[in-house]
């Protein structure tokens, strides 16, 4: 007997966010990254259209990271000291389709670089590489409120993705991103209620829901990944049922979490970190991640291959 696939009919869809602006769109990027737009749960290709496969962006820092495991530093070696060289290496050697720069050096405890200095770096970076850019603050609210507006202005018209805005600190960031034509990352602490509230608060500032990417906050494999998974699933079910306030694509900071796991830092088994990063990423793709921020080129290569296999045959 022929078997029939049981499928759901959904009324809603995830919003589509475009990162990067080409020359025709007023920017200088060589291409754009489109994420979101799903009309079905993750990977259920028969149920509804999944127009864009998940994308991976390479994470780079404005300062040399001191606490990264040796295995993670190895592929970048000397370039870690110079963000422009580091960026170049990602794009040239590892074919990065997007870059995510974390401005850690602006943090009061990590060098306290001035907003002007960081804005200058962003301008240089935009000249140096032509891939779409994701810009992250240093995580200190007071500093980010000075830093991110300066970087937003420096990248005006390039339609970057900038964050993270949190429930207690979103107004200044949202206002400047709105003025400069960027997208925003809305971060919530593995909490669907706060995620929804923050999206509403940001859209009340005038930044449309269609320019928000949600950072649901994740845990690595073995470190609470399933909590993130269930939050993402719940949010996606609501989005597909028509709730636009949670219908934003997800950004997942995969490397930041997976390289903190003790299993990833096992010196007797150095390849374990790559595996940890790749497995965390692939699990999150199945949870509905649209944009993955990763570090190790080998892990990224594996995940890109996984995406090609999974989404190529759709």
């Amino acid at each position, binding site marked *: 007997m022929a078997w029939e696939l049981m499928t759901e009919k959904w009324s809603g869809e995830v919003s589509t966010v475009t990162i990067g602006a080409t020359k025709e769109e007023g920017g200088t990027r060589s291409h754009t990254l489109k994420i979101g737009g799903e009309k079905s749960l993750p990977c259920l290709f028969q149920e509804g259209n999944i127009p864009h496969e998940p994308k991976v962006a390479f994470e780079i820092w404005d300062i040399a990271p001191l606490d990264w495991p040796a295995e993670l530093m190895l592929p970048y070696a000397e370039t870690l000291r110079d963000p422009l060289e580091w960026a170049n290496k990602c794009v040239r050697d590892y074919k990065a389709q997007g870059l995510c720069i974390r401005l850690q050096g602006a943090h009061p405890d990590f060098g306290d670089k001035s907003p002007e200095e960081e804005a200058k770096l962003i301008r240089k970076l935009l000249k140096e590489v032509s891939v779409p850019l994701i810009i992250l603050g240093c995580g200190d609210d007071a500093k980010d409120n000075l830093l991110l507006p300066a970087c937003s202005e420096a990248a005006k018209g390039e339609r970057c993705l900038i964050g993270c805005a949190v429930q207690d600190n979103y107004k200044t960031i949202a206002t400047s991103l709105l003025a400069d034509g960027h997208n925003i990352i809305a971060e919530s602490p593995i909490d*669907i*209620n706060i995620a929804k*509230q923050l999206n*509403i608060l940001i859209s009340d500032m005038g930044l449309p829901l269609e320019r928000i990417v949600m950072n649901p906050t994740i845990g690595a494999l073995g470190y609470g990944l399933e909590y993130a998974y269930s939050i993402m699933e719940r949010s996606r079910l*609501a989005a597909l049922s028509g*709730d*636009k*306030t949670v219908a934003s694509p997800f950004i997942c900071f995969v490397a930041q979490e997976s390289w903190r796991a003790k299993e990833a830092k096992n010196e007797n088994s150095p390849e374990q970190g790559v595996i940890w990063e790749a497995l965390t990423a692939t699990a999150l793709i199945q949870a509905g991640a649209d944009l993955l921020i990763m570090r190790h080129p080998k892990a990224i290569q594996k995940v890109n291959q996984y995406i090609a296999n999974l989404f190529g045959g759709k």
Partner: protein
Amino acid sequence: MFIIGELINGMYDNIGRAIKEKDKKEIQRCALEQISCGADALDINCGPASKQPLLDMPWLIESVQEVTAKPLCLDSSNLKVITAGLKAAKNKTIINSVTADSEKLDTLIPLANQFGAQLIGITISKKGIPQNKDQRLELAATIVSTCVDQGFPIENLYLDPIVLPVNVAQAQLKDILESIREFKIISEPAPKTTLGLSNVSQSTNARNLINRTFLTMAIAYGLDSAILDPKDNQLMDSLITAELILNKNIYCDSYLEAYRKK
């Protein structure tokens, strides 16, 4: 909850006057106002005073269609008026309503099939208004089985248990609520349920409170839709909160605003 706005009805002074004077703007204003308050569809009723409902119904529909593509709920017991409305309608339509009498079912179901309209089946018959839950269920089963026989998709059928005023038939309201739940198990797929909410508070002096309390309870019994006044803000707040408590929407501090943003 599928909300059908009840305010385009000739029995209201402003609409009665607008129909008489062919004041399209007033009808359109009333349509848009209800939609901005959360109506998913609009009930269209010429009212008892309309002298020429065969002309008034199409005129109302054309006026409303100029400003919205929302579904229209053609509210009349007159087959000719419904037919005139269906012919004029470009938007999706819902026929409001068919009773459980075979002559009504045998004309209105084919008509709904012909125009691709949804249908509200109201659980009354020539014998009168049902007096208890079992009678309601029997009438509902008649409507469902006739729809099945005539190839009408059950997911396009709304069953209305017929709400009676609390000051007239107080003893029946619990049965009416329980009917909502039982209608859902008549068939698979289940029919949807709706009701004309404002009936429950006719001639009482606490109308809004009774309306919203009854609606909240009906939602808990699984009500899918209601014909109501979407401009009653407290009623809408209660509706949104009842659905929230049933986990139909994700909570956030601004959940009322979030629902209205949808």
